[in-house]
């Protein structure tokens, strides 16, 4: 697919899920932070794979197996090129972001010792908190948390003072799933490298909004999920710098990840297969490759501009609502609008919006420590993708007004 000018109406045509009604109302899908809808081309790729190309990879001598292996490895190269990795060996297929972070926490974690420190931030998703807590319990490492401001921005000064020679890894979200804050990761990576710490970026919310170049960012690890970037569920990616991945022991044992097995001693396969034990999610990887190719056909700068416009538009209207508080007012933020309304429970608002055909997320968004920081039980979160429109925001605003009327009356 070649590049073409950005037209939201043309793009919407490519997403079958957006054409449906729920409860007799046209569906408005504002839960893109949780997962994105899939373009027809990804659905076609999955169908084609299971219908005609299905075979196990890396070990078959027959035609189909070679076809499937080629497609799987091609997907790896597509992703490598998309995020600017040096080599396909730096692209490890995982189940998703959570799985990728757990892989690093286990395997990179094996290289750490008691007293070493892991630095995270107060705005992390549970999946970038709990794996490190498990590591700390296992190895006696210490977890440090960099604070944020009430606007939802990282306190860089505090973060810098927490960085020290014991810090071995800084694991930080590129974009907050709850607040939309885009963190100044380039600065953080530079500072961390000065003291010899490695940096992992949780890219679950950034891959679909920003053009990612891991070489330019100079991050040591970057993780993302396929399903948030218009691909299938159950597939994700861990990017890691080759020299670091080489030093890390395998995460799981099984087929594909071995060179030679005897009962006395097993030698491991080379990268990237060292970290891909067992039959991988072949269809998922090929489907993700197809989603990335789809993105390759888009002008990501125009996409970012459209999403920014949607966010500004929605925030501008919601700001005028009495009793409504936007949670996450960072200067640099992506297309997430999280809010609370005085005396109204997010669950009630979400339920009433749902009945009007509008899908939003409510609750703590797997960021309970962040909710504790803001002293709220949860928020309503509308998160936009490039296929959303201002008209949808107008309908959402009217539905929100009606919900508030019913709840407040």
């Amino acid at each position, binding site marked *: 697919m070649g590049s073409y000018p950005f037209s939201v109406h043309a793009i919407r045509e490519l997403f079958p899920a957006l054409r449906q009604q729920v409860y007799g109302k046209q569906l408005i899908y504002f839960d893109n932070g949780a997962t994105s809808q899939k373009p027809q081309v990804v659905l076609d790729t999955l169908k084609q794979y299971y219908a005609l190309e299905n075979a196990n990879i890396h070990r078959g001598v027959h035609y189909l197996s070679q076809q499937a292996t080629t497609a799987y490895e091609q997907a790896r190269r597509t992703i490598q090129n998309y995020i600017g990795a040096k080599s396909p060996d730096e692209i490890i297929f995982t189940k998703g972001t959570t799985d990728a972070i757990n892989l690093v926490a286990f395997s990179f974690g094996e290289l750490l010792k008691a007293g070493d420190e892991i630095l995270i931030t107060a705005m992390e998703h549970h999946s970038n908190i709990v794996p490190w807590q498990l590591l700390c319990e296992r190895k006696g490492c210490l977890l440090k948390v960099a604070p944020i401001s009430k606007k939802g921005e990282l306190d860089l000064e505090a973060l810098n003072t927490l960085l020290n020679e014991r810090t071995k890894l800084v694991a930080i979200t590129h974009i907050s799933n709850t607040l939309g804050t885009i963190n100044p990761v380039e600065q953080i990576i530079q500072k961390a490298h000065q003291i010899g710490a490695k940096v992992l970026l949780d890219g679950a919310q950034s891959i679909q909004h920003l053009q990612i170049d891991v070489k330019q960012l100079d991050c040591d690890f970057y993780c993302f999920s396929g399903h948030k970037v218009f691909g299938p569920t159950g597939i994700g990616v861990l990017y890691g710098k080759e020299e670091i991945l080489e030093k890390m022991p395998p995460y799981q044992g099984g087929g594909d990840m071995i060179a030679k097995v005897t009962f006395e001693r097993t030698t491991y396969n080379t990268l990237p297969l060292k970290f891909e034990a067992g039959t991988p999610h072949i269809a998922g990887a090929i489907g993700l490759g197809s989603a990335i190719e789809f993105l390759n056909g888009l002008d990501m700068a125009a996409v970012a501009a459209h999403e920014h416009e949607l966010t500004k538009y929605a925030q501008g209207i919601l700001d005028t609502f009495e009793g409504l508080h936007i949670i996450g007012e960072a200067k640099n933020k992506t297309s997430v609008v999280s809010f609370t309304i005085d005396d109204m429970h997010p669950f009630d608002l979400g339920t009433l919006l749902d009945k009007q055909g509008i899908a939003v997320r409510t609750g*703590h968004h797997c960021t309970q420590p962040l909710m504790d920081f803001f002293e709220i039980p949860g928020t309503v979160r509308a998160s936009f993708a490039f296929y959303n429109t201002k008209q949808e925001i107008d309908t959402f605003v009217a539905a929100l007004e009606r919900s508030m009327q019913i709840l407040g009356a």
Partner: protein
Amino acid sequence: MTIQEKQQELIDEFAIYDDWMDKYEYIIELGKSVKGIPEQSKTKEQLIEGCQSNVWLTCRLEAGKMYFEADADAIITKGIIGMLLQVYNGESPQTILQTEPNFIHEIGLTEHLSPTRANGLLSMVKRIKTEALQSLNP
């Protein structure tokens, strides 16, 4: 009124609404009329934590009948609680154990009792049944 009749009464009340928002307006009105539990009397033991909303439940046995009081932080949850209490309050433990809250499905609120909804209601129904069972085998 038997427990089945109480369920039917609720089903009939909802039958007049064919619009989802009207149904929910009615549930919210119900929620506002539920007495609830005063803040200072809410205890950890009564709390049923849900991912989306929290529920509190107390119960007592009087002359062989069970009486529940409940509360929730979300008003829709509270409205559905109001209906569950209307059905189960004043019934014997045996009746409670034998009766599923089928009216919820009939009214079209099944999603609120689904494990994925995580609003504490499914756990609350389980807790009601557990309390009934315990009162039979103290």
